[in-house]
């Protein structure tokens, strides 16, 4: 069990670093999809006492949504927005990766502090959840394009999902599916927003949004 979790952990961290270091949006979307699938598997390994319908539904719903549906929507959006590369992010790619290493160390420290309060949670997943939130936030503030910021939001969502799965032992299925639905709607709304921004301003570069048009 723990070796499966640590494999998910290591691969998940790598997808984060790939997101930080990749400029092609298509590749980023695929990394994000892999990340979504990986962390959707966490409940399967964490609830090792009973592999009930609830857990399988949760993991399956997550994989279907984050692994398949979101990437399709995002890839479609990418081609509609005609946006294939993050050309000049506010923070460069090498600097982003270095930030990732620092963030990893910081989230490790935070997880160590949190560990006594959440004794039953597997430590690596606690650390991964904090790291995912940090990386998602960083992607949102450091990338110019609105589409990359949507990706950052989804990384945060992954982090929150992991955190919820490992800390709250028994959430009703309805609540969890509700959260999933929220994320689903959010991606659609953001997609529509990005599309409209692109159509109105000719690009989804948030830096150019200061020149508002009436």
């Amino acid at each position, binding site marked *: 069990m723990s*070796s499966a979790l*640590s*494999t998910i*952990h*290591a*691969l998940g*961290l*790598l997808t984060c*670093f790939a997101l930080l*270091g990749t400029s092609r949006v298509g590749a980023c979307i695929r990394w994000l999809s892999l990340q979504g699938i990986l962390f959707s598997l966490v409940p399967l390994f964490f609830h090792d006492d009973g592999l009930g319908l609830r857990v399988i539904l949760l993991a399956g719903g997550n994989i279907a949504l984050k692994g398949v549906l979101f990437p399709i929507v995002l890839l479609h959006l990418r081609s509609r927005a005609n946006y294939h590369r993050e050309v000049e992010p506010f923070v460069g*790619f*090498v600097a982003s*990766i*270095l930030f*990732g*290493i620092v963030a*990893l*160390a910081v989230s*490790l420290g935070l*997880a160590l502090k949190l560990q006594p309060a959440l004794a039953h949670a597997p*430590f*690596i997943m606690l*650390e991964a959840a904090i790291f995912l939130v940090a990386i998602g936030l960083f992607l949102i503030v450091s990338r110019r394009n609105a589409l990359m910021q949507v990706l950052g939001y989804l990384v945060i969502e992954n982090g929150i999902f992991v955190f919820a799965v490992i800390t709250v032992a028994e959430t009703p299925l309805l609540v969890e599916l509700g959260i999933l639905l929220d994320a689903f709607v959010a991606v659609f709304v953001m997609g529509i927003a990005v599309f409209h921004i692109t159509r109105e301003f000719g690009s989804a570069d948030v830096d150019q949004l200061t020149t508002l048009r009436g």
Partner: protein
Amino acid sequence: MSGLHWFFSPLCALLLAPLLSGVINRTKAFVAGRRGPPLLQPYRDVIKALRRGAVYGDTTTALVRLGPVVNLAALVAALLLLPFAGVPAVAGFSGDLIVLVGLLALGRFATVLAALDTGASFEGMGASREVHFAALAEPALLLALATLTRVTGATSLSAIYAVIGVPIWAHALPTLALVAMTFLVLELVENSRIPVDDPTTHLELTMIHEVMVLDHTGPDLAIIQYGAALKLWVLGVLLVGLAVPVRTGNPWLDGAAALAGMTGLAIVVGIVESAMARYRLVHVPQFIVGAATLAAVGFIVLLV
């Protein structure tokens, strides 16, 4: 002591190192649908260069002559620190992995000095690039070795590679896989293979290592070519020792597995070179920092 004699590792390296680049070239030719140069071509190149006289520029000093020799000496010394095929290193001691990194740095330093000493602008450019990338690659190597130290709890290369086997792979699979990836990237970076540098071109604008040795001729060039082969071997041993953890205790079996591993590595490098294009120079640091990140992630995964 698994039975193989201590001189097995240095002897293999000194005799077989040029064969690695022969295998790489053959693989590239095979993928491209050509027959390619004979496997022994690197040896012939070295011998041909040895027979020729050396030409030195008027502006050069003794540094140009010293550079290749120091580089070769550092690499031979590095060979003595490397365990191979389950045989402990000739001169292993606690902390020798830092000495290994230092020796590689010394060799690079000598090569760079020699390149700068020629006074040619192209070589200065190559030296600048080499140092730039090395500044990123050395931390990656140190991190990877530090991670191995942490996995195995040993502080000398021989002890580390003696411990690595199937049980420890099962115990720390993600970490060891990440470190192996780092070593593979470093093998490509340090030896100026394709995603970083193209060893076959002689276009100054694209080169890193080849451009530094443009002004070397005759025996110096032979020493440089042989040194490059040894470097390929040294970094390859680090990877193969990790990725092919065959430690049966039977000297023939261990030796054969290690040599097969080296051949496999050469084939992998050849396939990478055939399948990938060289990165633009500005993307190379990203590639190397990525490799360092792999090792760092491996290290941090281990902490938890």
